[in-house]
């Protein structure tokens, strides 16, 4: 099991040039749309099996995302593929410059278990649109989805160019021993470091889409309806995506001490409204993916100080892998629940004296993937943008920036590097090749040795783009060397 043969086949197919035509790329993306369309029920079922996702959530976060991305690519890929002219300074006349996007070659995509369909297929769309051959390695922690992808993709997409390889850590390790033209990884920082270390051996460029503790700053909002909307969006942004098991889920909330009670009341209200009085029965929220993560999350609550800070929820069911939406008020900042990405249905509410302190709070921690802030204060907004650093910032809403195709989606610092979505997906799997065209007449003699003062003078003028000076110089420069 060393996959060498598969990769060689892919490389050969790529070399044949068949992945480069617009027609081929569009055909693959259309086929992907057909795959989704034909297998929608099967996808819903697989997501229900792996994560207990409700079909609406499954559509919203997975199928819909892929459809949107595919359509966007079909509409724009030709434009993205077109060479872009670069202005070349007159000094180089006659010359023409351009930048061509070319596929990198054979790329490897690792996807994660929490959005096992969209985080596999969205990057895949980018890789195909850019003209690459692809190996997709879905997460084994979402086995029904992994198996569904492995089964359906060969029937819809060109099997000579796109392969799905299933398996666990041992398979990933084997894949990482090979040379790739790009590795696209979505997952945890710990594994990302392993991936990048392996990539370094072959100088393979990587994009790492990681996570972090995405904070939500809640400023004072005078209008009750706006406050309600803000809290509603926070609730939707926490327990909506895979029960908090999402890289862009709200990890914790920062609020001024005096508003904490109101916030908590509203949080409880919306939790009840969305998930009913018995969230376990309503089956609206996803379950915890597996025993290992369930244990990890339960361990976060082992600390007595943390348990004492629970103001809502806290109940768990190991058999159903269910943890109810839980709110904590000011758990100790050095507890694991506040030093690690939670990736689950616990929402710590952290109070500060003045909301401005949130900036320092966030800056003293690793850079998150997304920062959320609910405020109407324009000065505060500007301050947040200029004084904090995160992959992205979203004001007055949660999660939706993920759907904005014109915005680059990616992390910074510990939350990763590289980006995708829309044209950024295309770019991430492309090499921007510069081409300079020159002509074989009109020589600038001073370019060549033997050197002398006259040539030096000319080149100094040339470098300053001092065309007038050059002209004068040339007029007096009679003898060629």
């Amino acid at each position, binding site marked *: 099991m060393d996959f060498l043969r598969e990769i060689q086949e892919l490389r050969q197919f790529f070399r044949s040039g068949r992945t480069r035509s617009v027609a081929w790329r569009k055909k693959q993306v259309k086929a992907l749309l057909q795959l989704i369309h034909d297998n929608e029920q099967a996808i819903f079922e697989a997501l229900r099996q792996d994560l207990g996702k409700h079909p609406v959530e499954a*559509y919203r976060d997975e199928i819909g995302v892929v459809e949107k991305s595919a359509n966007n690519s079909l509409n724009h890929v030709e434009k993205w593929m077109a060479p872009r002219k670069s202005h070349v300074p007159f000094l180089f006349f006659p*010359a023409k410059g351009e930048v061509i996007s*070319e596929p990198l070659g054979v790329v490897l995509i690792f996807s994660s278990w929490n959005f096992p369909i969209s985080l596999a297929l969205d990057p895949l769309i980018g890789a195909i649109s850019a003209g690459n051959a692809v190996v997709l390695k879905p997460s084994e922690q979402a086995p029904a989805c992994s198996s569904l992808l492995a089964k359906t993709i060969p029937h819809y997409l060109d099997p000579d160019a796109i392969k799905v390889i299933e398996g666990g850590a041992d398979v990933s390790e084997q894949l990482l021993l090979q040379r790739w033209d790009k590795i696209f990884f979505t997952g945890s920082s710990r594994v990302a470091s392993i991936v990048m270390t392996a990539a370094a*051996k072959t100088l393979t460029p990587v994009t790492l889409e990681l996570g972090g503790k995405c904070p939500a700053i809640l400023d004072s909002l005078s209008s009750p309806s706006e406050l309600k909307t*803000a809290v509603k969006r926070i609730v939707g942004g926490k327990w909506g995506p895979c029960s908090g098991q999402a890289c862009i889920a709200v990890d914790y909330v920062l609020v001024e001490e005096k508003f904490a009670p109101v916030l908590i009341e509203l949080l409880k209200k919306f939790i009840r409204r969305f998930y009913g009085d018995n969230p376990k029965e309503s089956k609206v929220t996803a379950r915890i993916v597996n025993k290992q993560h369930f244990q990890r999350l339960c361990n976060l609550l082992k600390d007595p100080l943390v348990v004492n800070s629970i103001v809502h929820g806290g109940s768990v069911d190991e058999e159903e892998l269910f943890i109810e939406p839980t709110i904590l008020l000011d758990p100790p900042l050095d507890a694991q629940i506040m030093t690690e990405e939670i990736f689950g249905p616990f929402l710590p509410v952290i109070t500060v004296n003045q909301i401005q302190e949130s900036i320092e709070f966030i800056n003293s921690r690793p850079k998150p993937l997304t920062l959320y802030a609910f405020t109407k204060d324009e000065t505060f907004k500007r301050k947040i943008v200029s004084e904090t650093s995160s992959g992205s910032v979203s*004001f007055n809403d949660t999660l939706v*920036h993920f759907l904005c195709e014109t915005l*680059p989606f990616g992390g910074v610092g510990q939350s990763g590097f590289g980006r995708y979505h829309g044209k950024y997906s295309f770019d991430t799997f492309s090499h921007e*090749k510069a*081409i300079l065209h020159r002509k074989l007449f009109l020589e600038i003699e001073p370019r060549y040795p033997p050197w002398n003062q006259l040539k030096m003078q000319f080149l100094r003028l040339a470098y300053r783009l001092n065309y007038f000076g050059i002209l004068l110089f040339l007029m007096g420069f009679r003898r060629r060397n």
Partner: protein
Amino acid sequence: MAGEEPKNVFDAEAASSLARELRGTFLSGKTRSYEWRVSQLKALLKLVDDNEQEIVDALRSDLSKPPMESVVCEIGLLKNSCKVSLRELKHWMKPEKVKTSITTFPSSAEIVPEPLGVALVISAWNYPILLSLDPVVGAIAAGNAVVLKPSEISPATSSLLAKLLGKYMDNSCVRVVEGAADETTALLQQKWDKIFYTGNARIGRTVMTAAAKHLTPVVLELGGKSPAVVDSNINIKVASRRIIAGKWGCNNGQACISPDYIITTKDYAPKLVDALKTELETFYGKNPLESKDLSRIVNSNHFGRLTKLLDEDKVSGKIVYGGERDESKLMIAPTILLDVPRNSLIMNEEIFGPLLPIITVDKLEESFDVINSGTKPLAAYLFTNNKKLKEQFAKGISAGGLVVNDTTLHLAVHTLPFGGVGESGIGAYHGKFSFDAFTHKKAVLYRSFHGDAAVRYPPYSYMKLRLMKALIGGSINGIIRALFG
């Protein structure tokens, strides 16, 4: 041992303290203002202007680089880089507004460039001024604090850079660390926000492995065997001069984008060799070892490496021009070889010296296979008047950058991204690409409190599902249909 003076060693502790100090300065916000960046870029310009002679002397000491090359290829290009940055910086720093779709309506969005933080620039010995300061220009323009580690293989320049940057730049944000492998290792153990490395693939791998521990993004400007394909029916004189300028005119072939080897047809090769010989003599005279217009080989290590390439059994008989060497002066004359075997050493590693093998093929189209059978080079060159060949070249050759009918010039065009692909590197720079290389483009979405689609929230229903499909798909008709059944 007792009684010994403690050495001023730059070890892991010193590196850690340096990184901490610079991070503190960066977090104070000092490097972010437009004024600070401009002041530093201007200081760099002044540094180069005030000390041109010293720079030329240092380059002569390290590489016997002809003053003209120093002024044109190092100083001139660097000054240009500063000027372009100064001219464009305001524009580069501005957030870019982007369109939003109905899916997030009502909303507005922009992409805000922000500095990554503290950057580490590790530079090379062959263009020790340019390859040190050009990335520093990018780091500063993007608002970062920066540590520069010049190459110890060009010691006079390294020491000059340490002196001058210490004198002209804001020391709380811009620092130089001199040294060799130990110092570099100590630096690489620290967490940086970006590492920019120029050099060879072997160290490139080490740098990226170290970066992986901290998930630090890297730019690796490496090398490779940059081929020059020469067609017939061209102005052979001009083509030869440009090949010579790109090869021996660039640090005597010790440049990452020098044409490494030539591919031409069997029929045309004699003409090409003749033209090259004629022009080489015009440029460097009959005694090139004595010419003042050629750089020397940087050190005896590389001298030994290059002579080994020349002296290999199956290669030494293929010399058709040059081959002279003077170990005492570390000089190797411009050397052309014809039809060396493909499995010779000289055809299997980057030459980085004044040796130019010419490989011949029957039909010029075969040259593409030759190039594609190797790793992707940093640059590839084609001399031809044939439009179809140009198109095939542009499409079929993957390299960092391509030039048609010239060599190396693309390095000087700041509107073109300069960087490698595959084994020739990761990332790009020059002009705005330098700014981008040290920047995080932060996506910012502004939403209002209105326009909250109940569709987003539970309890879920079939109707909500339909509406959601329409919203995400962004189709107004779909939305209307879903709303009104």
